[in-house]
């Protein structure tokens, strides 16, 4: 569970090549998996990568930049408007980095809760943005939101375990 602490929170370093590789693989999987798995369209690899790297770097600017870049790439590869995912993921990156500087989020329950909260927040933020900007926004589907929550939390826990192998304390 996340706990507010006044103790120093450790910062980790990760190999510079891990981020580009993770982004590349995440984007490829994001594009290819829906062709093979019906539930894969619920997965959001760029979001999970943003959460993870903002969490371990604990830098808000870094979180904003990473979320923006990944969101824009995701928008560019999709058929939607460029910028919607960029905005939502920039906000998520900022908030995750902010939370990571205040709370101890290294434990599995904390990461699970954090991922779940921000997956839902990302979905709500995306929906709110679509409703604010689009003339005919897509309707909110609670089942799809719940399914996406479960799928992405599960995927995130797996992804985090894989990426944790490449990190070292700074």
């Amino acid at each position: 569970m996340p706990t507010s602490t006044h103790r120093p929170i450790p910062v980790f370093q990760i190999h510079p090549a891990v981020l580009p590789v993770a982004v590349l693989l995440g984007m490829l999987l994001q594009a290819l998996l829906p062709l093979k798995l019906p539930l894969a369209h619920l997965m959001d690899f760029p979001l999970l990568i943003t959460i993870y790297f903002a969490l371990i770097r604990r830098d808000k600017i870094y979180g904003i930049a990473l979320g923006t870049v990944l969101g824009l790439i995701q928008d560019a590869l999709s058929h939607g408007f460029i910028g919607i995912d960029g905005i939502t993921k920039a906000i998520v990156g900022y908030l995750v980095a902010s939370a990571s500087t205040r709370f101890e989020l290294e434990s599995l329950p904390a990461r699970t809760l954090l991922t779940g909260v921000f997956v839902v927040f990302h979905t709500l933020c995306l929906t709110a943005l679509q409703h604010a900007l689009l003339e005919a926004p897509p309707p909110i589907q609670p089942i799809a939101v719940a399914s996406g929550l479960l799928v992405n939390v599960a995927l995130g826990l797996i992804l985090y375990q894989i990426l944790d192998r490449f990190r070292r304390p700074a």
Partner: protein
Amino acid sequence: MFDPNVVDFIRPVPGLEREGPNMPAIIRRHRSFFTLLAVVAAQVLVLSLQITRNNHVPLIRYWAVAIFDPFERALGGLMEASSHSYQTYRHLWHAEQENQELRVQLVTAQAQIQRLGEQAGESQRLRTLLNFKTQQAFQTTAAEVIASSEDALHAAPGENSNAITAIFIDKGSDSGLSNDLAVITPEGVVGKILAVFPHSSQVLLITDSSSGVGVTLAQSRVQGILKGGTNGSCDLKYVMNEETVGRGEAVVTSGLDQIYPKGLPVGTVISATDGMIYKNITIKPAVDLNRLEMVLVVLKPPPVAEQQALNIPSRPQ
């Protein structure tokens, strides 16, 4: 590259030392938040260029119109109000100018109407005078009243001292006028010439206390002497109490004074009461002596016998 023995601690405020010296304190303190705002704003801008509404109108144009439209409306309304006010002021100014011009024109037109009315009245009076002149057997000459005088010295207590008792006419000795010539109008007797000057004459009106006219009551044929009375009226003297004099009876000249031709209207009886021997009869002159403008001067009255021969009416029918 990685040192597992080194554990770094969180940086209190990352990047704080990298900011510029001129950056405001609030932005310096919340640099990451403002960075987020800038990134979001930039992407919203990008989105607004792509998203369209209402027949492919770009969202940025839609927003721009939505933002600026109230100001444009307000400015437009202000300009329209200013223009309207200016136009109203201009119109008012022109209306004021036009009003002044019209007032001048109105005054000019009123003066012209008055002048034309005067001329028409004068023309009518002259026509009447001319008709009267041609109908009479005696010779007359027309004269214009040029001045009047009041006899305040002879006014009795309580008498209207402003009553006109003498007038001046624009004909004198150069026109053949002399003293004691009768002055009349188509309405009746005015008076007689008291003094003659080269180019004017003074006329003593019948209302003057020193005036005397030989008259006859038109119905009763009673004769008497008309003298000037009070308040612009005349008194008929020397009519015995036993004579019958009716109110409203006409009084005409008798011609016995050798001044006034016989049968000219003098006035009407307005009151008749018995006195000691003679009646007290008050006569209202036939002519409004305060409004004289044109008169006729009888140059030479014909003798009474001649008047009778000419069948000049001396008794109203």
